[in-house]
């Protein structure tokens, strides 16, 4: 893809354009704001699609239609819901800790948005190109529990407190196996940088190249991250039938809306990390075989045939990595929704048993096997 336009070229061009007419500090600030707003808006668009998708998937899996009143097949249902939430009163209970009650949703939203920074959306399209990328995401996701604990405690409601404590225990324990399965891929790729990890998969995704252990790591990561997002079958923190709504029992209006948004942002971030680590991020599908047909397939996947086309068509190739990135994102999200609407909720002791007695030992053994693979050079 030498002759094709790259994201870095486009970004450099925009930078040059801005620098030609403005002071450097102003350019810096504008770029900072525009880049972060663009990332957040892209994620919010994903969230809108995810909410609609969740309701339709839930509907069809439960033999229902799902939303079908507002707009064509109910596509505008979410906007109607947002307007409703915005118009509702944000009610604060009398005996709540008012400051923390108001701060909690905002804090948890900030924390989940922070995790976006090192995500690589396309070649050269990353907000913060840091050498600790994946570690940073892990660190931030370990902060996510704080907002939930604050919300649960400050509501001064026993359901909320119990939900928060369950969620705390759950997130703290499932972080371990999620972290270990991330470490497995980091050992294979040899870097923590998200862009570096994705580039190391140019000749095949890790889930294919890393033999069976990488596949196990993928499964463990999906299970653990579903638990970290507090989604069913691990939605102990909300468990409608026992705790009304868990930590956000007392929240109403847009404060509840923020928690709802937060759940989907977390899902999006987790899926982005999973696609970055295991499914090659924005890399197209690649068959790591040495056959003629495999080469042809790989060339088609990498849009090699477009190199000879006129220059203006090659702009299309700019969108190609994004198509792959968002395609993988929504594939993993579909898996998480599929699990949610199929499996029944676990009990709290089953949940902790699953993590500490099965997933954690499995992921440690898995990590050791992967370390052996890397040392002996057995992976592709």
């Amino acid at each position: 893809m030498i002759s094709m336009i790259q994201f870095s070229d486009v970004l450099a061009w925009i930078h040059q354009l801005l620098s030609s007419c403005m002071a450097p500090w102003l350019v810096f600030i504008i770029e900072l704001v525009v880049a972060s707003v663009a990332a957040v808006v892209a994620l919010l668009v994903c969230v809108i699609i995810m909410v609609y998708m969740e309701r339709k998937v839930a509907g069809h899996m439960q033999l229902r239609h799902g939303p079908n009143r507002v707009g064509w097949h109910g596509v505008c249902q979410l906007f109607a819901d947002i307007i409703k939430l915005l118009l509702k009163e944000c009610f604060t209970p009398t005996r709540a800790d008012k400051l923390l009650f108001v701060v909690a949703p905002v804090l948890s939203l900030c924390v989940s948005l922070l995790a976006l920074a090192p995500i690589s959306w396309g070649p050269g399209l990353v907000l913060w190109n840091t050498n600790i990328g994946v570690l940073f995401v892990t660190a931030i996701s370990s902060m996510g529990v704080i907002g939930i604990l604050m919300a649960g405690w400050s509501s001064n409601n026993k359901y909320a407190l119990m939900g928060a404590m369950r969620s705390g225990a759950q997130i703290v324990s499932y972080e371990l196996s999620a972290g270990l399965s991330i470490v497995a891929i980091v050992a294979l790729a040899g870097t923590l940088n998200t862009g570096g990890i994705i580039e190391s998969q140019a000749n095949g995704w890790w889930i294919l190249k890393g033999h069976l252990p990488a596949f196990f790591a993928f499964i463990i990561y999906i299970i653990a991250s579903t638990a970290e997002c507090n989604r069913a079958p691990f939605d102990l923190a909300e468990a409608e039938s026992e705790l009304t709504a868990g930590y956000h029992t007392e929240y109403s209006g847009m404060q509840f809306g923020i928690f709802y948004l937060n759940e989907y942002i977390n899902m999006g971030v987790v899926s982005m990390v999973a696609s970055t680590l295991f499914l090659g991020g924005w890399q197209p599908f690649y068959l790591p075989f040495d056959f003629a047909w495999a080469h042809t397939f790989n060339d088609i996947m990498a849009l090699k045939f477009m190199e000879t086309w006129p220059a203006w068509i090659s702009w299309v190739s700019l969108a190609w990595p994004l198509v792959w990135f968002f395609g993988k994102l929504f594939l993993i999200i579909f898996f998480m929704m599929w699990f949610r609407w199929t499996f029944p909720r676990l009990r709290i002791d089953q949940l902790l048993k699953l993590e500490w007695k099965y997933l954690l030992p499995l992921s440690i053994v898995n990590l050791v096997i992967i370390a052996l693979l890397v040392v002996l050079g057995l992976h592709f």
Partner: protein
Amino acid sequence: MKALYNYLKEVAFAFVSLANGLLLTLKYFVTPWKSIITENYPDNRNNPSVADEFAGEVILIHDENNEHKCTACTLCQLACPNNSIQIISKQVETEDGKKKKVLDKWVYHLEMCTFCKQCIDACPQDAIKMTNSYELSCFDRSTLTKILNQPGSKLKEKPKVTAKVQE
């Protein structure tokens, strides 16, 4: 060794059952036109498909001769947990001079009914049944108290059972 084998078998079985569940929901998801069972209610109002077993409003069955089967035994009234049934009977004199209890008013308080179907089960004559109607809301509460027996209706004469036995 046996315990380990059993354990592994259990694990494998657990995965198979998870996969079964996933496949079922996937089947529902990819073939919505086959699997969706909910109705587009206000749209198909003129042509709703309601199950025969649906328990709606209670009615007293009348045949074409304006006759019903209710003997005013009040078993339904006793069976009703909400007191939504009131059987008012009267004494009439038949041609051969006997006094007989017949139904005067079968009063049904729809606003108190929970559609539990216990009256239907209690009725020895199968005189009452539940219809499929579900649009029961109204603007005036007094219209919810209904008298189910039509004016001028009378008890259906039973064929002589004793005569049949003798034959």
